[in-house]
């Protein structure tokens, strides 16, 4: 029953013991510990590159959470992260590895922009719902491209969904450098600005927009689906054991396609809210990797919709704090590096959900 046994002290022995059940305390503390470990390890790398890690982390935290404008910016960036994170969490719950959220988000933004540009004079109550619908449908359809071969032929969805990200980004580039480019934009790769009706309203004078309400509503809806509906139960059972699900007569094929499409629809919605409220025009490079950050969020939140909201704020703070430290010469890539490191520590820490360290007084033989 023991994995490793070390004689540490003649009077005691330390060993790994298998746990039968994981405790809530462990489940909560592992993500927290992994963030702390990331700060330590990341700090070491940052120090090795000649920066003062304490100054950098303090600056990141202050600018992301302790000033009003910073906190608002963190909230703004959390909105697409929550939506995309929910999408990824839903797919991961069924062990469906949708890593194409970035592409689905781009296609959602593309379709929403198409609606906004095609209906420049329509009132908001027509344009906005149409944009939301178009964004979700586009994201869902883009996600169906890896889902259908996965469901019917068993084609690896990790590779196909990831490769489609590149295709989607080239598609946006094609539009904003080509047919959709605003002739008045002096060569910048952007479309014409949307009309006021195509913009999600903001709260007061801030940049925080009503997409926040959409994101929270989506989280609640996903929670109800996952934990209080028959379909959600099916998704969780398939995620736990495909064999058991098949034995119980669940339609795995149909669920792969539906779950992947709903996952894509959420990512597409993320693209729609971001493009409508923040940019008000389609432009190249509008997403700083929201779809990839969403993978970290889903993992840290253990695929739970409620935790997705909280973790999205943290990851958004990391993004905002990282951007603000650019003026001190810190590369933007620091954020991506830290995100990868968090995931490493999280995975490493997960062993504590299955094993525990015990220290016992040795019996005198």
């Amino acid at each position, binding site marked *: 029953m023991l994995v490793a046994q070390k004689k540490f002290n003649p009077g005691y022995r330390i060993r790994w013991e298998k746990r039968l059940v994981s405790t809530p305390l462990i489940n909560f503390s592992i993500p927290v510990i992994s963030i702390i470990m990331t700060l330590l390890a990341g700090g070491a790398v940052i120090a090795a590159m000649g920066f003062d890690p304490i100054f950098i982390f303090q600056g990141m935290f202050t600018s992301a959470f302790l000033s009003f404008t910073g906190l608002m910016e963190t909230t703004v960036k959390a909105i697409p992260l929550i939506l995309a994170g929910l999408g990824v969490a839903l797919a991961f719950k069924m062990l469906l590895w949708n890593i194409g959220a970035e592409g689905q988000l781009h296609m959602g933004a593309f379709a929403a922009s198409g609606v906004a540009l095609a209906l420049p004079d329509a009132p908001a109550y027509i344009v906005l719902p149409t944009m939301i619908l178009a964004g979700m449908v586009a994201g869902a359809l883009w996600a169906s491209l890896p889902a259908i*071969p996965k469901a019917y032929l*068993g084609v690896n969805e990790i*590779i196909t969904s990831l*490769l489609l990200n590149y295709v989607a980004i080239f598609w946006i580039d094609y539009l904003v450098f080509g047919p959709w480019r605003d002739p008045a934009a002096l060569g910048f790769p952007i479309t014409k600005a949307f009309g006021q009706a195509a913009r999600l309203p903001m709260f007061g004078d801030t940049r925080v927009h009503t997409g926040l309400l959409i994101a929270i509503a989506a989280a609640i809806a996903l929670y109800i689906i996952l934990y209080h509906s028959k379909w959600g139960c099916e998704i969780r059972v398939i995620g736990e054991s495909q064999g058991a699900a098949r034995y119980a007569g669940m339609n795995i094929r149909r669920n792969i396609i539906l779950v992947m499409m709903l996952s894509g629809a959420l990512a597409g919605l993320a693209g729609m809210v971001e493009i409508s409220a923040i940019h008000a025009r389609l432009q190249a490079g509008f997403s700083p990797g929201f779809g990839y950050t969403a993978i970290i969020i889903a993992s840290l939140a253990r695929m739970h919709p409620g935790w997705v909201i909280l973790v999205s704020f943290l990851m958004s703070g990391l993004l905002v704090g990282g951007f603000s430290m650019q003026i001190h010469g810190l590369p933007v890539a620091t*954020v991506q*590096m*830290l995100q990868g490191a968090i995931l490493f520590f999280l995975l490493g820490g997960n062993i504590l959900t299955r094993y525990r360290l015990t220290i016992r007084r040795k019996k005198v033989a």
Partner: protein
Amino acid sequence: MDYTFYLAVLAAAVTAGTPILYAALGELLAERSGVLNLGVEGMMLVGAIVGFIIAVNTANPWLGVGGAMLASGALALIHAFLTITLQANQVVSGLALTMFGAGFSSFIGRPFVGIAAPVSFQNIPIPILSQIPYLGDIFFRHDPLVYLTYILAPLMWFLLYWTRPGLNIQAVGEDPAAADAVGINVKLVRYLCVITGGMFAGLGGAYLTLAFAPLWLDGMTAGRGWIAIALVIFAVWNPLKAIAGAYLFGGVAAMSFRMQILEIPVSPFFLQMMPYLFTIMVLIIVTIQASVKRIGAPKALGLAYDREDR
């Protein structure tokens, strides 16, 4: 257009296929031992920048290659520790590796953006062989790293199918419990395969910055690591088939690049999509064929091995 154009495209297919081939051979080795490593893209990026930095500082491309392999091998060690010793999820760990590698390479590579490499691998035509009509132009007028794959891929094939260590690797990937029962050290084999595989990915990355396009750009692998993972499936985990596959993928990339130069009336953005769409299409076709012929991945691929679960 005369035949020299086609010869040039075919020769370009070989150079474009070489970094993918290195990465695919590495991934193939890891997967044969039962460990899926989705961190290829990240390891290639780190290999590319570390190789470049060392070459810039020492003016010796071979030292660059060595450093690149050490760095990417170290990254692979993280993946090995997490998935083999701690039995973490291989998919998530690989994704973490790709993200970390992309961030880390961009982080340490920022002072090197836009610098031309002072040294790079030069084409050395092989005497006699390069005089063979057609084939000489396509295969034997390249740099030493291309020639190295001509030896390495058949060597890996021989190792896997005809030597005891190779058969042990296969056994570990197919049925680790049985391999363990006959006295093979499952964890050690997996560690060695994952680390060696990572070193190959780093070598593929270094090929990009030291031979293919001697400069550093953020994210310059542009999905080649993922194409390499698809290539392993295409090659049905056989190193010899990986060679043919790599040149096929390289050919599509070379074609799309040539067509952009020829200014044919298709948007360059569509041409740039070609390698990715081609990979997806090939993956679908190969999966259909594999299910018909009942051949496939190593049976224990993606599963952690735990003696206690036997």
